[in-house]
């Protein structure tokens, strides 16, 4: 059997499931985005941009910012897990960082709402301990709340992936760099990071995609306008029964994530060959 054919055969079952059970239903949504009163048109996109362009920009900025912060936090945690000198601190950290992974997004929305609010648990705790006074408390229930929620929930996911990658690196190179007197930060940035970069990027892309499609976090945390694309999609459907504009927003969201994923895939494919 020729190899490309065998390969396709092996991929087919997975592709079939996704195609039949998601891409086919999605097709009606995508054509629906171009359906204006029964005719083909881009009216839904015009309306989407007219009413929600600030939401689109807001979403992309928030998700990119969150991705950067998630990347930095997971590098820091993963780096310490790999290079930490104190075994006790390493094992505490290892035990500590994973918890948010197990909390569903809708609950993340709820607990961070009651935690980050002006009179929420965080400010109460800080006031009890005398760090803040009542007048200094502020609410984080806006874009900052969304970013905090995303970073809180997604950092363990990416960390779990890159900590594994870091642990499997060749220790000899790290040790010799150490013996030459390189600082741990330098080892992390110049030796470890380049080697785990592909893993980091995949983790971040999977996070990016997940964050783009979360509805409960913006709904429960962000009261302000603009808000995230998903919240506007929900509003279009629930308030107006308007699937056209909702689907157009969905397509815009899909394009955004596709561009990001495609840039990454092209790069890895070059390496793959």
């Amino acid at each position, binding site marked *: 059997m020729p190899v490309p054919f065998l390969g396709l055969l092996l991929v087919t079952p997975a592709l079939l499931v996704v195609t039949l059970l998601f891409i086919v239903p999605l097709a009606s949504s995508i054509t629906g985005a171009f359906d204006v009163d029964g005719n083909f048109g881009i009216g839904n996109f015009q309306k989407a941009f007219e009413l929600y362009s600030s939401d689109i920009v807001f979403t992309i900025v928030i998700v990119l910012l969150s991705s950067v912060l998630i990347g930095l936090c997971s590098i820091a945690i993963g780096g310490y897990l790999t290079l930490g000198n104190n075994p006790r601190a390493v094992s505490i950290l290892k035990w500590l960082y994973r918890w948010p992974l197990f909390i569903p997004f809708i609950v993340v929305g709820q607990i961070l709402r009651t935690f980050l*609010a*002006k009179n929420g648990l965080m400010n109460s705790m800080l006031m009890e301990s005398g760090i803040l006074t009542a007048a200094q408390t502020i609410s984080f229930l806006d874009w900052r709340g969304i970013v905090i929620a995303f970073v809180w929930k997604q950092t363990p996911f990416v960390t779990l992936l890159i900590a594994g990658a870091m642990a499997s690196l060749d220790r000899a190179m790290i040790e010799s760099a150490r013996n030459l007197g390189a600082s741990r930060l330098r080892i992390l940035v110049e030796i470890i990071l380049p080697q785990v970069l592909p893993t980091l990027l995949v983790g971040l892309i999977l996070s990016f995609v997940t964050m783009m499609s979360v509805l409960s976090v913006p709904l429960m945390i962000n009261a302000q306008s603009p808000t995230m694309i998903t919240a506007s999609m929900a509003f279009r459907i629930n308030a107006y029964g308007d699937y056209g504009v909702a689907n157009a927003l969905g397509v815009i969201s899909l394009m955004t994530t596709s561009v990001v994923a495609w840039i990454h895939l092209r790069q890895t494919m070059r390496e793959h060959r």
Partner: protein
Amino acid sequence: MRKVCYPLVALALTTSPVLAEELTVLTAGDQNMVDYVNEYLGPLFESQNPGTTVRAVGTGPGDAGSQKILERFDAQAQANVGTWDADVAVVHEKFAGPMVEKGYLDAYRGDIENGKLATGANSKMALGTNVDGYVMPMFSSQTALAYNPALVPTPPRSYEELATWAKENPKQFGYNGIKGGASGVSFVMGWIYAFAGDADKLMNGPFEEAETAKWSDAFASLKDFTTNATLTPGNAGTLDMLSRGEISMGPVWVDMFYSWKADGKLPPEMKLVLPAPGMPGQPMHYVIPEKSGHKDLAEKFVNLATSPEVQAEGIVKRFNWYPGIDAQLVQSKLDAATWDKLFTDISPEDLAKNGKSFPIAPYNTAILEAYERQVGN
């Protein structure tokens, strides 16, 4: 395909084969709606109809919950399913119209004994669509302003007073815009009723494009008002901020307000006020899909649910909701103290005068879009 699936299901053992008659109730709304069917109405119905079981499925609060029921019907209609998997559904008023127009519902009200007790106008028209015969109101809900008397000793009695009060107390009033749920929407509708003309026309129609041009001043003042207010994340978000004292007043659904109080999440001294010229309320409707597999049982169920006894004991006494059917019939089943509890904060006169309905669907859409363009952006 079915042949493959059924043994699998049987194997899974979690779905019992339909031996006894099983009545499936889909309900939009909060957890307490599911509790109402599960803890009160379901057991009562089962005891009266031995061999039947009632199971309730909650689809989530707010319009999103009703939308999910509508989408479920859409999917079954498009797939040409012969017998639908829901027997009774509880939906918001706004969704009764589309369901009737799409021909999903059974006109059952004439068939049930208590059908004639639904005397309110809301059982005939739903936001401008004729739904006469297709719906029975479960209860009526109302939006009002919740406030903390410790922080607001004399609450504003009208929208004008509220605007002045909010200016004097910046950020103390909170509402959830229009994207976060209907309590914010309701507040906005009330604002338009108060400052932009003809509430009766908005509520009863007919729709005239020219009417929409009259709102710009009201939206400008609302935008101004909103800069002095706090925006909250959702219906529950308003209650949440009231609960932590971050705002001292905000629009809420009366039924949610009471369940938050009952759950110990609001200070017991919190009160409600319904400002003039009024804020909208809406009924939750019982509907029966045309293609329900257990129509007789479903009719029996709704008949029980809308009997004066159940409306008195379940709706008013247990949950402190306004009855769906003719109020006088319900009142006669209750002692004065229980009945009066319904009107602790909002008197029957205020409710009659200031309890409005939502604008008819085209105005509703136009107002929301105008808000998006003029206030939200």
